[in-house]
């Protein structure tokens, strides 16, 4: 523990950063695994329900009926911002290191939106704007392979 002291009453007490970390490793299952595999390939997939509705990101079970969903389908890498919220004060661990917008983006071919971020100036943000995915140059099969979305100019 470094000699970084603070005061408590009249006495100096020690203080130090303490990082508690659990290095979990979890299996993805076939549906989320396929979604992450697609991200690693620089693209998106969704999953189709019994009525032909495409959910993206894909889920294992129909949110309405609970039935197992199994039919994976391709989804575009561009989409439409359905709603957004500006993030002015950026915190550690957030997707970008400068102010950005949290968005609900519905990708082309999907019928449900996913939550992500758009890297654009505040004045460029608008509901209904077109955005495209920006992927990491080195991808490993993780959500972090998708860096953000950016406006389609």
């Amino acid at each position: 523990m470094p000699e970084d002291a603070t005061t408590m009453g009249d006495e100096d007490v020690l203080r130090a950063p303490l990082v508690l970390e659990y290095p979990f490793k979890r299996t993805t299952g076939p549906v989320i695994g396929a979604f992450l595999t697609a991200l690693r390939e620089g693209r998106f997939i969704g999953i189709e329900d019994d009525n032909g509705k495409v959910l993206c990101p894909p889920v294992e079970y129909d949110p309405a009926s609970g039935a197992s969903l199994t039919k994976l389908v391709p989804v575009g890498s561009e989409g439409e911002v359905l709603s957004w919220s500006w993030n002015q004060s950026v915190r550690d661990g957030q997707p970008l290191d400068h102010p950005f917008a949290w968005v609900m983006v519905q990708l082309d071919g999907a019928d449900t939106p996913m939550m992500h971020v758009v890297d654009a100036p505040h004045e460029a943000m608008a509901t209904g704007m077109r955005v495209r995915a920006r992927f990491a140059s080195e991808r490993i099969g993780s959500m972090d392979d998708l860096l953000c979305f950016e406006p389609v100019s």
Partner: protein
Amino acid sequence: MTDTTSSQPAPIEIPEGVWSQPAVNMSAVADLESVEAVRSVRAFASMTYDYTPGLATTRFLRAIKEKRLVGERCSETGKVYIPPRGVSPVSGLPTTEQVELGLDGTVVSFCVVNLDFTGNAQEIPYVSALILVDGSDIPIYGLVREIPYNEVQPGLRLKSVWVEDSELTTSFENIKWWAPNGEPDVPASDLADYI
């Protein structure tokens, strides 16, 4: 999900009758079948605290930097606690009297660790023991080395093995491990109050 592992586990054969997710239909995304599928992710859960140990443990840690072990005594029961937390767990009274302890101790109980786990830096098997430091009334955890694991037993007398003086900090890690000090074992009856 912040990272994936590079070495993917092989697909697991799930015994019949055990729940599993149904296989997916990839006919519409058939090209994804020709690449290696992602089967697991590393998902670190990490929390960063600004930790302060409080007044009593600060006194203890300042002493340990000087290669001293200092406990604090309960004014009602006379018991000496290490590391001190500033209050007696029995009487609830503040512990104000500091007590200089020895640098040797006695094994009260122990565990031979045969399983490796994430974050473990020790070679298995190794012995983790509850050690009653001379002059104290509550045992602390310590690593026992310099003796075969199957010769460790309650009552074994130990000395603390410290880092080099130049490496002393305000940390319990100043004590690298504990090792036999050559003294005769303490009779089990003397340890009855501490087990």
